[in-house]
């Protein structure tokens, strides 16, 4: 099981966390076309390599945070401070 580095609680089992998926921006709901909105809802890049993700420390400090995971090796890096889902994405 992956050991996920929560910036507050430190490395914790992935099952202590809630995986929120690939980090991506929420489009402006009033301006978004159907295609843009549904891309936001359903379509993921699913790269083989580094992927920026949202995690939620649901059984710990309950912070939302982002990290980068290498989908091939399972390596995790650079957990930035918690912030906007859209920041840096």
């Amino acid at each position, binding site marked *: *099981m992956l050991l996920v*580095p929560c910036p507050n609680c430190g490395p914790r089992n992935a099952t202590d966390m809630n995986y929120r998926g690939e980090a991506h921006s929420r489009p402006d709901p009033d301006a978004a076309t159907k295609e843009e909105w549904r891309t936001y809802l359903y379509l993921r890049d699913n790269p083989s390599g580094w992927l920026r993700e949202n995690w*939620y420390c649901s059984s710990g400090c309950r912070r939302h945070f982002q990290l980068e995971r290498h989908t091939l090796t399972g390596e995790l890096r650079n957990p930035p401070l*918690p912030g906007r*889902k859209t920041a840096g994405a």
Partner: protein
Amino acid sequence: MIMSNRLPESSSEVVDRSKPIRFDWNGKKMKGFEGDTIASAILANGDHILSRSLKYHRPRGVLTHDFWDPNLMVQVGDEPNVRAGHRRLEAGMKISAQNVWPSLKFDAKAANGIAGRFLTAGFYYKTFMKPARLWPVYEKVLARFAPGGEVDLNTPHGYHDKRYAHPDVVVAGAGPAGLAAAIAAAQCGASVLLVEHEYEVGGHLLWGTDDDRAAAATLLAQAAAAGVEILTNSTVTGRYEDNWLGIAQRSHPIAVERLIKARAKVLVVAAGLIERPYVFQGNDLPGVMTSGAVSRLINMYGVKPGKCAVVLAANESGDQAVEDLKRADVEVARVVDARGSTTVNCAKGSRTRIKSVEVSDGSSIDCDLLVTAVGWTAPTSLLNMSGDRPVYDAAAARFFPNSPPDNVLATGGITGDGSRDELIAHGRATGELAAGRANAARHRIQAATASAAAVAGDEPEYPSDNRAPLTRADHPELHRSSTHGLVDYSEDISSKDLFGAAAEGFDSVELLKRFTTATMGPSQGKLETVNTVAILAEARAETIEQVGTTVWRPPYAPISLGALGGRVFEPVRVSSIHPWHEANGYTPILAGQWVRPEHYGDPHAEVRNTRTNVGITDVTPLGKLDLQGPDVPKLLSQLYTNKWMKLPVGGVRYGIMCAEDGVVLDDGVTARLGEDHYLMTTTSSGAGGVWNWVENWLQTEHPEWQVHVTPLTTGLTSINIAGPNSRKLLSRLVDCIDLGPGAFEYMQVRTGTIAEVDNCIVWRIGFTGELSYEIHVPSGHGLHVWNALLEQGEDLGVAPFGLEAQRIMRLEKGHFIVGQDTDGLSKAPTTGMISLLKLDKDDWAGKTEVAWALEDDYPVIVAVQPTDPKIVPEEACQILRDGTREIVGRITSSRHSPTLERSVCLAQVSREFAVAGTTLTVLLANGERINARVMEHHAHFDPEGERLRG
């Protein structure tokens, strides 16, 4: 009783001759000693056939006498597939051979052996394919030939346990190197868990010289003194990301088996070496054993394995077996030294035992025991699981680790050869390195943890691997002789089968394995993988390096389903009123994690009493979130579909929440208690999810909003008081809240004192459709307030009602339940509450999709009444277009209504059928079609709401 093959007592043995044990083998009474394995005890009593083989039902005896021995699967009482070369003998065991009929000695299925040439690899795939309609017949016949013991469906489940461990270092294997590594790591300050597969630590020292056994005892004492936690008869079954380890502990004092999930900073793999059998004609005759089996039987269990032996020796283990046999008074007729050019061609035997051996120099020697010592398999499973791909070394005739990750270290025989002292030295160096790396990892973890205390001292450097490697002893490559024999004893796969499969095109080792099932039996490749690879290489005229090997996957050894299921850690939640429910004849129902009263005997009577007098019900599981701050209205507007900016203090409003795809997520009421203070309620099942949802919006999309959210679900005990007498009842418990109809209206909230309990919240809402109040009291006083309501309302006819009565009343009123009447595809318009979907409001969750849904077609929730009032259609019954099988909807809720004395339903139907007065065709579970009518209002009862507004 005479034990015909028991040797005189010796200092080396692990059996305790002062403690005899009686047991039963195939109905025969036998005697063994404490410390015996099941197999050693049976052998000591003179029997040497312990099973029949899988396909050909050939008689089988001891081959390796350890956990992996494929010939020693027996039934013990109601437990099938017990490994008799591993499991210790216990008093009163009823042991029997499995996979035999009518008896072990005379097995009718041995006829398979005569027809053996038809049962080549792939036989089942090819023969039983067509015609498909005959498969049930094939299945019945094949099932009779299936191996394995008898499963008793009445076997008690037994207690299984689970443990989570966080050691610095886990050492897998307690031979000399593993013990030394554990001791050294512990002496360096690491917390160490040492896991040994067998019942005793020491590895091969246990069946070695007196010095070896003394050394093992010293190491064990040192490990105990250093504080190493030692688990025997336990196996590290798997290694997953970041050293997440599964450990099956079979030695727990109470549990049948315990699964330990350990997160180790460093894993030391000291799995030792497993002796390989040799492939030649007759290699599965009873009386053909590995050198390790012979030394273990003689030295540890005092059992004489035969009378006259031939030994095929390619290494020191074979030499030791010769010495052990001589000491046990077994005649050694011939030592065939495979380090020269001689080898064994084939073995011949009677129906039950080996009789002679043909040597490659042309001689034939009579014997009843053939001992082979032809080399080793490195059980690199845990290294495989760490991502390492071991590399074959032809000079040493085995695989070696390549480059495991930094937090996995290998030591001992798996990495090289050496004397006892050299193995111990390598183990010590590995233990010190493991402790150093674990310490560095601990510093890194603490430095990366904001909430952790500051780490004392500088971060230590990550130690590099400067261990002097063990040397690799030369060893002849001995896999197959000039004849064909069995490669996989568990599956009855011969080298001829492998040649045949390779010729058919299954020439990759992974394909060959799956087609022939070689390495896929109970031995799981521990004995046969390298021989399989070597024979494939031979068939392809390639080298073993070129062929490569299969990847060993978890589990390393079998683990019971009981242990995997283990102890359940799911918490059970109850309200503060629960003791009253228990004492008053409630029928419990599990709702999520909550145990709730379903009813107290008669839910219909509870409904009638509530509609006539007054009822009270425990609704504590209702999700409750305390929201404070100036921006709460913005949050509510974001999450609910309707408007919240102008809710006055003292007001309560109902709202629906959508996910971003427009699907209904939850619903509930939220009250404004003060200027910046709100209480949100959610459905009971949605309590956790909505809390996450709220935090998600506050942390990611709108961190600038000032809102503080606190879950109060269990902090407040919630009671709903419903019925015509509810106002009168509540008024007897409150002083400072004016309950008058004009002063406290429907959908309003008040705070105050109830039954002398301060800080209570009362709101007037009506899920049941009656005049009703929901009160939230600090949970420490919940039971007190409940009792006060019952006492004060006695003359008003107060009685409790359970979840079922509540569900009936809400259905009579046509209130939908999220998740019951809606599903994962139901967008907000389906609820029919179009007026609550405020498209003129700024951004709210799901708005975009809801707007598009409204322009489109969508199913609608409608109230439905069957024409025959006595028929209650089952929930999830389909609704069909009349005269067809086209599904146009389904019944989502249905009950008999005691108020209306008829069946009432809610249904989801396509819009075409949602018009009041439409007659629907409902397909009942029994196949019958009935008619039902779509009603004008959701509410079957009191559609104008006069009762709840009264």
